[in-house]
């Protein structure tokens, strides 16, 4: 189960990395229209939420410590927030549908939130690997302890 957690968190990390790629695809597609972001929104609204739920489930089944379960749950909240930020960025337009400073600020937060989410998932993946294979970590600690007196 802990191995599965490692794999799931890695998949989640890959999905998040791809999100940045798909955002760039959307930004540089010509002509620019809403359909340019189809890959980005499918990954964000379907693939990532499913992978996140899977990670949470595996973290719970693997009897991971509370901190790791928390780190598995956090991306779910960030993903919901991410969708909301995208919605707000599109909502804060002027009467003719052009973007406004507020809308663009929120759009910026969408990017920041994405970076935060990646950091959390990187942390989760590290914790999952340590959980699955604690020996090297323990050995490392032993090394430190041995080094201390010297």
């Amino acid at each position: 189960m802990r191995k599965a957690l490692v794999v799931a968190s890695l998949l989640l990390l890959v999905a998040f990395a791809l999100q940045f790629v798909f955002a760039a695809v959307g930004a540089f597609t010509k002509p620019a229209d809403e359909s340019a972001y189809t890959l980005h929104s499918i990954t964000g609204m379907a693939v990532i939420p499913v992978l996140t739920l899977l990670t949470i489930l595996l973290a719970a089944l693997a009897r991971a410590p509370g901190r790791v379960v928390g780190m598995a749950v956090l991306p779910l909240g960030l993903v919901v927030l991410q969708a909301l930020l995208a919605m707000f960025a599109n909502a804060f337009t002027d009467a003719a549908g052009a973007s406004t400073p507020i809308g663009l600020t929120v759009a910026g937060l969408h990017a920041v939130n994405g970076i935060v989410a990646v950091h959390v998932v990187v942390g989760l993946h590290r914790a999952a690997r340590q959980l699955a294979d604690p020996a090297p970590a323990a050995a490392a600690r032993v090394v430190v302890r041995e080094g201390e007196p010297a």
Partner: protein
Amino acid sequence: MSTGSLLAADLVIAVLATAGWLGGGAASAARRRRLTLGFAAVALLATLARAVTIVALARAGWWFAAEKVVVAAPLSLAALLVAGVRLLRPPADIRSAAVALLFAGYAGSGALLVTLLHGYPVSPGAALLAVAGVAAATTVSWRVLGPRPSPVVSRAAVGVAVAALVTGTGLAAAPDAVREVPHEHEYRDTGAVGEPTRRFTLTAGTATVRVSGRDVAAWAFDGQVPGPELTADVGDVLEVTLRNRDIARGVTLHWHGYDVPNGQDGVPGVTQEAVPPGQEFVYRFRADQAGTYWYHTHAVSDVGVRMGLYGVLVVRPAPVTGVDVTVPVHTLAGLTLPQPRTEQVEAGVPVRLRLINTDSTTHRYALAGTAFRVAAIDGSDLRGPTPAVETAVLIPAGGRYDLVFTAPATPVALFVDGRAVWSTGPVSTATGSWPVLDPLGYGAGAPAPWARFDREFTVVLDRGLDLRGLLPRYAHTVNGAAAPDIPAQVVRLGDIVKFTVVNRSLVVHPWHLHGHHVLVLARNGAPATGSPLWWDSFDVRPGDVWEVAFRADNPGAWANHCHNLPHADAGMMLHLMYR
């Protein structure tokens, strides 16, 4: 503060409250005492602020606040009680408050998800599923964070979660009692309209058109975007033969704003079958409404219209005197049409600019260099239009405004979203800060033709999760349902019908009823005081409540939908049926 801003503010505050509780829970689990109290303070403030926004929304209309009062308020209250009581005297080991704070966070998340996924109408199923989620998440947190709850508490929580889950799923999955979705139609025949006096043939096909020096792949009528301009005089009988050369997904012609007999309306699956490649369809109708209209395909309308299957239809009551210009604005492959044009117009010549918005979103038009009058909107003449100067007009998707003026000796220019589209010479006026004309107070008022209504429908526009299709989708919904599962509105011939159109969502929905023009009665409770407005397309902005009415005088099955065509594709489409 407008209701639209209130809706957005309420969501932001709900997110803050939820994030505050969840952050507090995480901080307390990590024994960060000060951080915990900080997060909790944010959550507390946000929860209190939310009481204000919910009350304000309820005052603006129950539609906006229903699920917030019935679902979010009790959950927020429970959150406040449980977390507040626990933190009133913060425990020595702050970690012991973690479960209470997390519970508050889960309650907030549950309420938020109800608003986002199935807000209106209030659904007991959705509410119970939220409760089940909150109970389950709290139980798991409790077990993870320890100390373990007593068996009694644990069993009770599991019991609540399971009971809520089962009942909620049952309620959510149960089919609604009344679903009147007619799917089988017999297409009505035209009836006799007399011998055609104007004949046109439009051939739809893929084409490459040149826009601003670029070759663009398009779908076009007769190889041009926009398609040929069809003109007629009042009293003409039009016969338009539509041929499909190679549009694989089919084509039809819908006469936008023209109240043709049902069989000529061009809605595939409702008034005819889409015309497949190699086939044709003949439309015949009498041109008895003067004014500015347009035609477009209604088969895969989102893609079809965007790719260029549209054109102008102008019906004139008398021969043209002066200059008569049509300006159908469209965005083709990111490029704006029509291309800018300069025309010499002698001073003193009357000019009529027929502005048409064929896109899916609102455009802003500004006429610089002259005073003008809005002679007609959506083809219907306005009563007593007064001169306007340095004023912009907002035209909704599908809408038309006719601006008239007498050409001055100095140049005049029409700007669309700040870009000069038609001019009589160089004009460098910044129009961005001009006020926008409000048609509801423009021109001379007239008493309403009807005092009572035979039938009233409320149309609440929102977003929501639609699980009825093959794949779940985040649909644009009407009264909580998405096409094709929205019950039809059934009327009788001769009925005076009133629509109340409410926008709960955060985006504009340009509403478009086929086959009829609706009279605008009121917007956000304020009656329309200007010229009577007979419209076929009107922008319902976030938080808006529009009241409109019409006489049911054109029997058949009519589409009634959002003219932001991606929204219509994503579920925002229903039908008006005659019994």
